[in-house]
């Protein structure tokens, strides 16, 4: 089955990296087919950022995300921009401190990813916390795979921190699942 995932937030949050890691984990370590496409504005200046991942057991022809099955947002702007294209029965994942839900959504999973990251001492690993959460919640990707993909994306000296961030997020994801 073809699964479409969209990540959204603003520049500096590492949104592009989230898409890249997710798709790489699926493709390289889980042996599925996966395509990642970053979203480019007129120029790569600050502002809104988003990235797209398609995962499938079959060949992926059309590579873009048009109606995401899963929408992961880390800013109010991204939420407002992309929520309308989320599939009717799609899953919304948000950083609960950064996004205020507007109208009755369907399935929603929340985590204070940025706050958790700050607690870990590095605000910039919020995206990794979120990736862990996403993995736990959706089970789309094996934990092993995402972990490998995360670790090879970060400089050696930040490996431990990132692993912790990922795990924290992942555990909350599992919990959410079990709820």
């Amino acid at each position, binding site marked *: 089955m073809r699964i479409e995932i969209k990540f959204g937030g603003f520049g500096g949050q590492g949104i592009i990296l989230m898409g*890249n890691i997710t*798709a*790489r984990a699926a*493709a*390289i370590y889980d042996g599925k*087919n*996966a*395509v*990642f*496409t*970053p979203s*480019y*504005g*007129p*120029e*790569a200046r600050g502002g809104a950022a988003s990235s797209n991942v398609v995962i499938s057991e079959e060949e*992926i*022809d*059309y*590579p*873009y995300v*048009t109606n995401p099955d899963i929408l992961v947002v880390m800013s109010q702007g991204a939420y407002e921009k992309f929520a309308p294209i989320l599939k009717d029965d799609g899953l919304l994942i948000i950083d609960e401190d950064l996004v205020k839900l507007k109208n009755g959504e369907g399935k929603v999973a929340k985590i204070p990813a940025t706050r958790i990251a700050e607690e870990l001492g590095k605000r910039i690993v919020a995206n990794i916390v979120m990736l862990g959460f996403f993995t736990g919640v959706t089970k789309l990707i094996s934990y092993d795979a995402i972990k490998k993909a995360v670790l090879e994306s970060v400089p050696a000296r930040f490996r431990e921190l990132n692993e912790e961030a990922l795990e924290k997020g992942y555990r909350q994801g599992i919990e959410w699942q079990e709820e």
Partner: protein
Amino acid sequence: MKKQIKFYSGNIAAAEGALVAGCRFFAGYPITPSSEIAEHMALRLPQVGGVFIQMEDELASMAAILGASWGGAKSMTATSGPGFSLMQENIGLGAMTETPCVVINVQRAGPSTGMPTLVGQADIMQARWGSHGDYEIIALSPFSPQECFDLTIKAFNLAEEYRVPVIVLMDESVGHMFEKVVIPPKDKIKIVERKKPTVPPEKYMPYKAEDFVPEMACAGEGYNVHVTGLTHDEKGYPQATDPEVQDRLVRRLCDKIRKNEKKLRDIEEYEMDDAEVAIVSFGISARSSKAAVRLARQRGYKVGLIRLKTIWPFPDEYFEKLADEIKKFVVVEINYGQIKLEVERNVGRDKTFLLPKMGGEIHKPDEIYRKIKEVYNGN
């Protein structure tokens, strides 16, 4: 050595392909959406002993890779529409002096500055006709990061074999999309090297060709070659007022590509066995087209896809023959009808249909499917 599996964007895959093919010189000028190729080459070339230089513009970049090729290196540049326009004069020099080199054009939406970060496929005709005078180049079009890798290697091989600039006509979508790329073991990859003269310098005729393509002596090899963009004889000397020399030279330059069209042909046929309608497409558009064909087949339409991997020389003969079997051709491309003109020339206007896009987005499989239905049902 065994194969490796990487997760690359098309741009990175093309750069890696170039390195595998033996590229050891890159001169370029940044331009979205091709810049990652230059950036990756800046990082990687020194690691393999090659030279990266960022030139002052695209004119200089193109001239530099020609110079480097005569210096003995396999050389390449990468750009997008506006830069490609600026390279045309020296692509012509490359064709005239038969200089092997590779030019990647990661197409964005034009004309002019257009939409720098978004997809287009409207430099197809320019790739063939952008420089003045009669000449021929080879152009290839990959539709995935894997093919960016494979076809860039092929581009280098063809450049060396035919002594001609080879254009890799990518598009922004393919260039920026990340996907699995399989890197085969080294010994499984065919690499072509340029033919060197086998005679001593006194006997060497730099522009005499038995079989269309002359042997090439580079700088410092002792052959004292003179190379000029003027009309030249087999010795390489200017003969700029002799129409017979011109006739012989220009015919050879063109015919070495035209007459080898069949060898250069590279087409993927998908579901074509019993097809009544054929989609003709390439690059990213071919991915949407493939999805559309699947859709249509599920609903019983006898539709297939002809995907052009070699765009130039255009496979006239192939289409001419097909015209007897296929009822209708639908060209799906992100431009206002370019390959469509070529198809039309071969199969006739009444059989040719166009589903264009002006750029900035790719076709949705749905749109193509609707067009198939419409054409299939004959209106």
